[in-house]
């Protein structure tokens, strides 16, 4: 099995889906000749031509809205927002339109679109090239939000997203693009949207997280194992709607739960995970539910010391895990 990077898995999934279904097409800013500012669509313009890898005008609401319209006419658009931070002009299209089209038409119309966007910090991107935006969309029934952590999951989940009959936001951690590599089969496979994945089984504490932080947790779990602390790592993979069953099962089993997100703490996806555990697992808990998250400031600053202060990292994760285990 080939070892490829996270971003190569994105490209691979797109290519395979475009080869499989002629209705799949890509639209976004700089996705064509340039192959995207991160090169996620590299080579696709050459292979499929400009009709299927469409460089759009710089206008995010149109990118989302045109994708929605095309999907209602039978196409399978995959729209790229250049940075998750720039999805804001498209929020009306995503929330008022995409999320509600099936519901408001009583199942007469539907909107099978995928909107991909790189999110996350640690790349000197400052306030507007580093944000996690999932919480904005994570209380909008009708939407699905997928945030994979590994190249294997990227491929299987992006293919599933493209084949899904409902709108899917697919957020890719931009620091993971080249730093995270893994084995990815060349054959066609999909992974279920809406299902979390236990990335490491353990008995003492549970870490629930997603995206890049999964790797920090796995790294720390390896270290803690040498000290006799057995960690279970649950990768949410889909942050909306949440896989309640897996969350409840793991929290009940270990009784000690650490929830990690790179996003600002209050009102994050982890706030909801925490509520689920509080509602269902109270009598199984041996420690208060702990959240490790970004500080409640608008977004991460540019200067390196401040960026590092904001960002999640393996040391912060390891410390929080050890503290919880020792509670």
């Amino acid at each position, binding site marked *: 099995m080939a070892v490829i990077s996270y971003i190569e898995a994105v490209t691979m999934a797109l290519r395979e889906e475009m080869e499989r279904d002629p209705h799949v*097409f890509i639209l976004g800013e700089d996705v064509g000749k340039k192959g995207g500012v991160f090169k996620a669509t590299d080579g696709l313009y050459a292979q499929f031509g400009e*009709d*299927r890898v*469409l460089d*759009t*005008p710089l*206008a995010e*609401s*149109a990118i*989302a*809205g*045109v*994708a*929605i*319209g*095309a*999907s*209602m*006419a*039978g*196409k399978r*658009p995959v729209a790229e927002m250049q940075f998750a931070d720039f999805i804001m*002009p498209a929020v*009306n*299209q995503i929330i*008022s*339109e995409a999320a*509600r*089209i*099936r*519901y*408001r*038409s*009583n*199942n*007469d*119309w*539907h909107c099978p679109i995928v909107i991909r966007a790189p999110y996350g910090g640690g790349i000197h991107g400052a306030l507007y090239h580093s944000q996690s935006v999932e919480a904005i969309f994570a209380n909008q*029934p*009708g939407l*699905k939000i997928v945030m994979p952590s590994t190249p294997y999951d990227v491929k299987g989940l992006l293919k599933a997203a493209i084949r*899904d*009959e*409902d709108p899917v936001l697919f957020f890719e951690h931009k620091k993971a693009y080249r730093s995270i590599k893994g084995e990815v089969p060349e054959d066609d496979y999909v992974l*279920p949207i*809406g299902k979390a994945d236990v990335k490491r089984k353990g008995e003492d504490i549970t870490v629930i997280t997603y995206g890049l932080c999964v790797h920090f947790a796995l790294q720390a779990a390896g270290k803690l194992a040498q000290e006799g602390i057995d960690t279970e790592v649950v990768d949410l993979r889909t942050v909306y709607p949440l896989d309640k069953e897996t969350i409840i099962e793991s929290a009940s089993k270990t009784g000690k739960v650490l929830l990690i997100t790179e996003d600002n703490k209050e009102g994050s996806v982890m706030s909801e995970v925490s509520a689920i555990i509080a509602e269902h697992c109270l009598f199984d808990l041996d420690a208060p539910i702990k959240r490790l998250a970004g500080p409640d400031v608008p977004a991460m600053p540019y200067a390196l010391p401040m960026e590092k202060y904001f960002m999640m990292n393996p040391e912060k994760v390891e410390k929080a895990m050890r503290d919880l285990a020792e509670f």
Partner: protein
Amino acid sequence: MEQKHKEAGLTDEDVVNMYETMLLARRLDERMWLLNRSGKIPFVVSGQGQEAAQIGAAFALNRDQDYILPYYRDFGMVLAFGMTVKELMLASFAKAEDPNSGGRQMPGHFGQRKNRIVTGSSPVTTQVPHAVGIALAAKMDKKPIVSLVTFGEGSSNQGDFHEGANFAGVHKLPVLFLCENNQYAISVPLNKQIASPHVSDRAAGYGMPGYTIDGNDPIAVYQCVKEAADRAREGGGPALIETLVYRLTPHTSDDDDRSYRTAEEVKEARTRDPLDSFRLYVKGAGLLTDEREKQLETEIADMINEATEYAEQAPYASPESALQFVYNEAAEEENA
């Protein structure tokens, strides 16, 4: 004898159909106000005064393949595209059988997939990029399909109008932007909405032709939309057509227009009511006798009465059905 319609490429039968649809839209609209004022339906949004523009445009399209993305006043347009009086009445009463939304949305939020009437929402102008996307799909699939999207002049200030129009202009897509300029965005008049004399002036910025035409003349609207649709179908790209109309009613049943416009102004506009002028035209063309007119009014009244009675008696969707259709339920069953 009036012959203008023949020069525009319309048959006598077309003109009679257009008139009948206009009359039907008006009488249905009037009935909805009565039902609202008598406490039977909670809300009305009206298309009175805009029927000629709507029906002229709808008749200029291929109603077997083209898509429309109407806004909330387009009762005439959706009737011309195959929605029935009964279906519109079911929507007004918010009953389960309403094909637009099964009673989920307010009246005037049209949608019916089988007739390619694309589902709409309340935030204005969001439908414009959708129309562009449908036109993009048509171009990609090499299908001779045109999409037509309507909106008010106030809506032409929204970013989605400009983003959508620019996208369509750049990619030369078969989409028609039809503005029903009824002079008011709720209470705010045209001169407080746009700085240029015409909405159609905006077309120049997006590389497409712009037209301002008399929206009280359904034949003029037909002719303009038909030419634009033919050109779009042949790869000539989009067009922006501004129809000048007047909103004869308040914004909705919850609005009182006396606070922002004079009764004299509305009275004066009523002298240019498109229904009256088109009736005169059809009669002048020898296509409508006084006797047939009377008969037509009776037929329409019967149809509306029957639809009202049906819709009033029809059941609501069950309360719990509010939980349905958030996602594709067929897939959920497969996964279960």
